[in-house]
Structure formats: C-alpha cells, structure tokens
C-alpha cells in the first residue's frame, strides 16, 4: 500500500492529469464546431500542458523548480492574450457572417475578394444599425 | 574572368542589352527601336568577325563564372562554335531587317523585338558554351524566349501551337536536364574536349552511357525535329514569317542539331560512339527522318508547311553526317549546317514576301507569280535548286561529301537514302518553280495586300526584298566559292582537321 502511495507522488499524478486534460481538450476541439467552445477547448489543452509542466517542477524532494514555474506564468499570460484576440476575431466573424461556427468542410474557394488597397477614407459611412444605435465599430471595410 | 573571355561576354551582351532596353521602350518609339536593333546586330557581326580572326590565329578564349560548387558557367570559342556563331550573327542581321519591314504597322513590336534579341543571345550562348551545363542553360532560355514569338499573333491557333511547342520542348528539356545531371555526376563537369572525355567510364558504365546517349538524343531530338518528336514544327508555322525563318534556319532547329554534334564529337568522341554502337542508331533515325520529312513535304499543300517538312528532312542530313563518324561525313554534316541555314532562310523570306504582298499561301496559288514578283521568284528558284542539290550550288557540296563519307565508312544504304531524298526534294520543290514561271494567272493580281508597302519601285517593300536577295546571293556564293579558304566548306575542313583526330583523314 505504501509503495503505491510513493509512486502516486504529485510529480507523477499531476502530469498524468495534465495529459488527460490535453487529450480531453483535443477531443473537444475536434468535435465541437462553435468557436467559443473551441477556444475553451484550446484553453483546457493549455491548462493541461501547464499542469504537466508544474507537475514536472514539483518532482524530486527539494523546493519546486522556479524555471518551470516562470515558464508556466509566461504560458498563462500568452494563453490569455491569444484567447482575447481569438474572441475579438469571433465577434468580428459573427458580425460579418451572422454566426460563430466554422464548419469542418474546406472553405468555398472563389468567394468574391475585394482588397483594402482600393479603399479610400473619404466619408466615414456608419453602417445603419438595425438593432439600436450603439456606436457601431467603424465598418471601414 | 580572363580578359580574353571579355570578348565572348560582350558578344553575348551585344544582343542582350539592346533587347532588354527594347522591352522597356514605348510602342511608338519606332526609330529608336530600329536603331537599337541594327546597332546590336552590326556590333555582334563585327565582334564575331574579330573572334573569327582570333580563333584562326589560334589564341584561346575562355570566360567562366562559378555557378555551383564544382560547376561553372563556361563560355569558350573553338572553331566548331565559331561556325554556328557566325551563321547566327549573319542571319540575325538579315532577319532583323526583314522583321522590321514585315511588322511595319503591327502592334506589340517592342515585345517582339525584345524576345527576338533574347532568342538570338541564347543562340549565340549555345554556340559559345564551353560545357554541357552552360549549353543546357542557354538551350532552356532559348525555349522560353521563342515561346512568346510563336504565340506573337495571339490567335487561338497560335496559342495552341505555343502550348504544343512548350509541351514538347519542356518535357524534352527535363529529360535532357536529368541526363546531364546524371552525366555530370558520373564524369564531373568537364568542358567540351575534342575526342570526348568519357573513355575512362567506357569499361565500367557501358550500358549507362548508352542509356544516357538515348536520353540526350531525346532531349536534343525534339529541337532538331527528329521523326517521332518533330510534330511541333509544322504546327508552329502559324508564327509570323521572320519567326518561322529564325526558328527554322537559325535558332531552334540548328540548336538541336548543334547539340547532337557537340555530344557525339566533344562529349562521347567519335570512337566511343562508334564502339558503343550509338552512331548506327542515330544513322537509322536520321535516315527515317529524311525520308519521312520529304514524303510529308510532298503531301503538304501549304507553302510554309512544305518548307517546314523540308526543314525536318534537311536537318536530318546534318545528323546523318555526324552519325557517319567518318571525316568526310562530318564535313558534309557540318557544312550543311551553314548551307541549309542560308538556303532555308531564303525560301522562308520568299514565302513571307508572297504571303505579305500577294496573299499567296497555297502552292496552287503560285501560278504566274514569276511575272508579278520576278526577283523574289528568282531567289526562290535559286534556293529550291540549292536544296535539291544541283551541282554548282551549296546543296550539291553537302550531298557530295555525305556520299563520300558514306562510302568511306562503307555504309552503302546511306547512299541510296541520299539519292532517294534528292529525288523527293526535286519532287516537292519543282512544282512551285514551274507554276511560278510557266503558269499564267487568269484574274489580275490583287494590288499589294498591305497599304503601307505603298508605291515602291520594286515588287514589294524594299526591306522585305533586299534581305531575300542578299541571302539568296550568299547561298549561291557558298556553293560556287566552296573551295576558297574562308568559305563554310574551307572553315569546316579546318574544324575537322584541327579538332578531330579521326583515323584515316586523307583529304
């Protein structure tokens, strides 16, 4: 019994937990189509990786390895910035396409493309807001 | 980059720089464009002349640029490269004048002349290249430079011809590319050395060398229009006359033949080719091409198609000469390189004149053209007779040496092939001549097709007529003055004497 307890030290238990979270997040990312859920799945995968890293930091007797912990802190901040940008992109996509879902199939290749180099900033045409006049973000496109 | 090499580079640039300048020239700058073209052509001719004298005196010219570790871009001038260089320099000057006249008021001339000079620079590059890799580089540039000329008119037919042309040449270029890489891997990036540099490999890699030879022949065969790979040539006739002339008399077709000459003589060497039995295969293919070309020419009703098929068979003469691997045969082959160039360009100029001035395309329409355009018809007759091989003219000199070469190597059946093809030549060249002079035309000749030819004293625009007559005179002279030292025959004798230690050279 005590042998088992030694083996289940945090240095091994948490990395295993982290690996399971990584796989769970991967499964969620593949299965779900709603972008917010996919972003959540990515965050859970990230937490899984950080759990593995911090589990590794806690290995061995002495105090935990500060380098690994510093890396995790960096990782968390990177994760939050990536998530924030992704959510801003999702909102933008919803405003353009009317829903926040990316279907698994390949994209339609010949969608009409106009490019920004032809845009001139004469008058700032405010897109008429059908809901209510919150100051729509500058639809310059 | 020794100084002697500088001359070679300037020859190459003498047509490249004007070409690039013309590319950026606006369409209406007619005078500047003509000036650039002519200065380029004249400077190249002068420089090639200087080079000719230099090589005659026997001094060395070499220019090398490191391209890859162990492999350099080498330009070298030996007597064989001079033969092709002089031919292309002379004919480029003539064809430029002709093209200026021919494309008088047509659109997109800057683009045409840009690619035109690019094309000739590639041809001169091929002539002056010192090793197989440089040869391949200019060979592929030639392909890319000629495609826009073939599709110049922009008609769907032209583009289809262009696509076919690219299809053939790019695939063959790829085969050539792989073969050259393989050869360089085996034998190292050697320069062209008379007598070949593959003896050391002969024992160990006999079969590989044979396979490589076949691959190389496929690579060059497409441009030299050997039988199975020739079908792009007649279809490419859709291009304007100067392009057909340039393609068939000077650049593309000759580059293929020149490549075969280089490989057989300067890479494998005559003995090794003989030993490995490569020349017999080449001989058979050349013979088949000669006969097939002549028969197709007979059946072709369109004048330019007929000339195209005659080119297919005439170039095979060169390959035949080289494949004979006897000194006389090689002389016959090489000298035909020049003769065929001159006579074929005359015929194409005449065909161009007929088409441009009177709108004649079919052989049937040539009745009584002799009376309407006597000078052009005279040039056409001289060229055709030269092709058939009448004694005083150039064609006879070639066939005479080829015959002797065949006898020397006692390949009798080749003699019969020559005789038969001579008859076939007569069969497809005489009818147009007879129609031209003796046939009479019932309805009056249409007044000149092109209003810009305008009231000229001659039968057509002077820029179309003078080059034709000049080239016709040249082809006659090469035949008459064959024995003189500086004539093509004399020069080829120098090449064969100095460069090829072929056993039993007795002339």
């Amino acid at each position, binding site marked *: 019994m005590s042998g088992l*307890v030694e083996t*289940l030290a945090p240095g091994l238990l*948490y990395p*295993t*937990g982290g*690996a399971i*979270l*990584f796989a*769970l*997040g*991967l*499964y*969620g990312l*593949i*299965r*779900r189509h709603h972008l*917010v*859920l996919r972003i*959540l799945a990515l*965050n*859970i995968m990230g*937490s899984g990786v950080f759990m*593995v890293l911090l589990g590794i930091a*806690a*290995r*061995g007797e*002495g105090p*935990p*390895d*500060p*380098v690994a*912990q*510093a890396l*995790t*802190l*960096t990782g968390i*901040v990177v994760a*939050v*910035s*990536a*998530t*924030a*940008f992704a*959510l*801003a*992109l999702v*909102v*933008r996509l*919803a*405003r353009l396409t*009317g*829903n926040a879902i990316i279907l*698994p199939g390949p994209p339609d290749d010949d969608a009409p493309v106009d490019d920004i180099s032809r845009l001139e*900033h004469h008058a700032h045409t405010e897109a008429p807001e059908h*809901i*209510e006049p*919150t100051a729509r*973000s*500058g*639809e310059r496109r | 980059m020794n100084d002697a090499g500088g001359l070679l580079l300037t020859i190459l640039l003498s047509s490249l720089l004007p070409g690039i300048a013309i590319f950026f020239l606006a369409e209406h700058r007619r005078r500047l464009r003509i000036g650039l073209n002519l200065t380029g052509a004249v400077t190249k001719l002068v420089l090639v002349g200087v080079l000719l004298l230099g090589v005659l005196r026997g001094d060395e010219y070499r220019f090398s640029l490191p391209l890859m570790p162990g492999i350099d871009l080498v330009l070298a001038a030996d007597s064989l490269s001079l033969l092709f260089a002089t031919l292309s320099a002379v004919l480029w000057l003539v064809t430029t004048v002709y093209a200026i006249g021919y494309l008088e008021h047509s659109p997109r001339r800057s683009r045409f002349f840009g690619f035109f000079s690019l094309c000739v620079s590639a041809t001169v590059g091929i002539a002056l290249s010192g090793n197989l890799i440089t040869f391949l580089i200019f060979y592929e540039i030639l392909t890319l430079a000629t495609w826009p000329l073939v599709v110049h008119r922009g008609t769907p037919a032209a583009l289809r011809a262009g696509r076919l042309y690219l299809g053939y040449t790019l695939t063959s270029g790829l085969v050539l590319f792989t073969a050259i890489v393989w050869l360089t891997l085996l034998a190292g990036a050697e320069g062209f050395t008379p007598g070949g540099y593959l003896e050391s490999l002969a024992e160990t890699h006999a079969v590989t060398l044979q396979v490589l030879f076949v691959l190389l022949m496929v690579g060059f065969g497409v441009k030299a229009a050997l039988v199975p790979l020739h079908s792009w040539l007649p279809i490419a006739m859709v291009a304007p006359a100067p392009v057909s002339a340039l393609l068939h008399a000077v650049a593309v077709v000759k580059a293929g033949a020149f490549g075969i000459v280089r490989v057989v003589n300067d890479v494998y060497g005559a003995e090794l080719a003989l030993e490995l039995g490569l020349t017999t295969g080449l001989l058979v293919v050349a013979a088949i091409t000669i006969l097939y070309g002549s028969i197709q020419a007979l059946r072709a009703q369109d004048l330019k198609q007929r000339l195209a098929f005659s080119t297919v068979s005439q170039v095979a003469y060169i390959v035949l000469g080289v494949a004979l691997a006897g000194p006389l045969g090689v002389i016959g082959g090489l000298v035909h390189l020049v003769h065929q160039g001159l006579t074929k360009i005359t015929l194409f100029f005449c065909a161009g004149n007929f088409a441009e001035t009177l709108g004649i395309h079919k052989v049937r329409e040539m009745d009584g053209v002799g009376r309407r355009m006597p000078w052009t018809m005279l040039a056409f007759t001289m060229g055709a007779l030269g092709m058939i091989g009448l004694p005083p003219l150039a064609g006879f000199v070639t066939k005479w040496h080829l015959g002797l070469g065949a006898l020397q190597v006692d390949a009798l059946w080749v003699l019969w092939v020559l005789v038969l093809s001579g008859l076939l030549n007569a069969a497809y060249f005489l009818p147009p001549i007879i129609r031209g002079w003796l046939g009479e035309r019932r309805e009056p000749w249409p007044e000149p097709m092109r209003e810009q030819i305008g009231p000229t004293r001659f039968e057509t625009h002077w820029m179309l007529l003078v080059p034709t007559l000049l080239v016709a005179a040249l082809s006659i002279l090469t035949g008459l003055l064959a024995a003189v030292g500086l004539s093509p025959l004399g020069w080829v004798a120098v090449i064969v004497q100095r460069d090829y230690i072929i056993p039993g050279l007795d002339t």
Partner: protein
Amino acid sequence: MNLLLVVFDLALLAGLIGVAWRCLASTDLFRAVVLFITFGLLLALAWVRLEAPDIALAEAAIGAGITGALLLVTLERLRVIIAGRRSDRPDTVPPDPSGPGAALQALHDPPPEPRTRLPALTFALVVGSLLVTTLWHQPDAAGLEPVVDAHMDASGVDHPITAVLLNFRAYDTFLELAIVLVALLGAWSLGRHDRIPARPAPGPILPGTLRLLVPVAVVTGVYVLWAGSHQPGGAFQAGAILGAAGILLVLSRPRRMPPPPGTLLRLGLGAGVGLFLASGVYGLLAGHGFLGYPPGWDYPLIILIEVAATLSIALTLVALFIAGRPEGDDRP
C-alpha cells in the same frame, strides 16, 4: 499524512477532469463559460497544491477572472449580433419567426453529429495514452532549482521566480509582454470599439461597492507588485488585479465609455515593453549583454520595469475587454 494528500490530489484531479468534460460537452454556451470559470478556480487550487503560489495567484486572476470576463462579454456581444436582441431589453426583439427564441438559438451549439465521434475519440485516446506512458517513463529528477539557487545572490531579488522571470530569462518575459501588446494590436485592427452592449445596473449598490472595492483592489495590486521581489507576487499578477479593477469600472458605466486620450493610452500601453527594451539596449551597449543589468543596478531596474509592466498589462487587459480601437485612431 502522505495518503491524505494522495486522496486530495485524486479528488482534485477527478474534479478538474469532470468539470472540463462537462464544460466541453455542454450545449448551452453560458453554462460552458461558467463551468470554465470553476475549472480555472480549481486549477488555481491545483497550482497551490504543487507549491506554486505565484502561478495560483496568476491563474485565479488571469485564467479564471479576466478570461471569464472576456468570455462573458463575448457571449453578450454574440447574443446581440446573432440574435439581434439584448438580454436586458426583451422588448427590442424583432418578431422572431424562426422557432425558439433566436437568442437561445444563438448561444446554443447543438451536440455534434455522432459520425465524427469515433475517429476523434480514438485519436484523443491515442494521444493521451502515449503522453501518459511517456510521462511515466520519465526520471524523477529535480529540475534547474539548484542552478537557480546558486545564482540567486547575483540576481538582485530574493524571490526565485521573479529572478528567473526578470533576470535569467528576461528575454522570454519581454516577448510575453510583447505578445499581450500584439494581441491588442490584432484586436484593434479588426474594428473600432463599440460600447459594452448592456444597460447600467439601476440602483446605488454597484456604484457604492465599486467605490469601496476599487481602491482596495488598487492597494492590493500595488502590494502584490511590491511583494514580488521577495515573495510570491509580481508584475503579471498585479497587472491582472488592476486590470480586473479597470474592467469593473468599465462595467459599472457601460454607456459613458471614457474616450481614452490617444497618445497617453499608447504611451501607457507601450510603457512596459518600451522600458524593458530601453534597459535591455543599455545593458547591451554597456557590455552586460542584451537585457542584462549593470551590477548593483539590477534591483532598482527590475522594480522600475515591473511597475511599467503592471501599468501596461492592466491597460492592455482593459482595452482587450473593450476590444476595439479608440476613435482617435480613425481621425485622419
């Protein structure tokens, strides 16, 4: 004692995996986000268990707090855009012909069709099991702790994590600040900012509490920043706390968005990265290597950089919450 800890670990991990599973499997987005926030808090607990208090602080403040807030505001924006209806103004709903409330439909992701279930499941299981077996084969060696300990005196700070972050691996931390800034630039490039689609909560309760909470938050933030040099704390955690205070302020007055002055905002955002780079370049020129500190000057410089970083991170997080570039940028 060890047994108790193992039981606690197993319970905690089971809880974590369970919450994560429920979060990803839920069809209603709001439920998924709430579960994700609980997952974040449980995660903070796990980091405490792994003796990483700094990371626990960061996870709670950033992972659960800020990310949760971002997710919730995104849901509200999606609800407004897709369903065309705001949750607190039911009367504005245009007659909705398409079956159940579009709002409900907007934030509802139907369970995926079973076709892709098997391949996805097998793939995830394979990846997971390979990872677990690899981790089980790894030696139980201590990491770089002894090396860090040996150089602690030369690092100018007492707390090992701050030493690693701001001295030994300063380059990574600089890039991390840069990434936060880049994420903001990316968000700003997508469009101009719009007000948070919500009406201010009526009644004095929220403004009153905020008047009490915000100063306390600011004091705590500064304390955490200051404590970072000798005990768990530091720029990122402090930045997150101040950012959270900022977001609370923004939420309390969603309509009257204070138009931030263009240049001042830009300077604030760029302060952290700018100062860090300036000290790094000085270090390079003075011969201590890029991002190196002159001897004796490392403690004051680190503190200065940490203050600037906290300011920048707080501003960036609030700007990311608003997720739109200020009008000033669009004036020619």
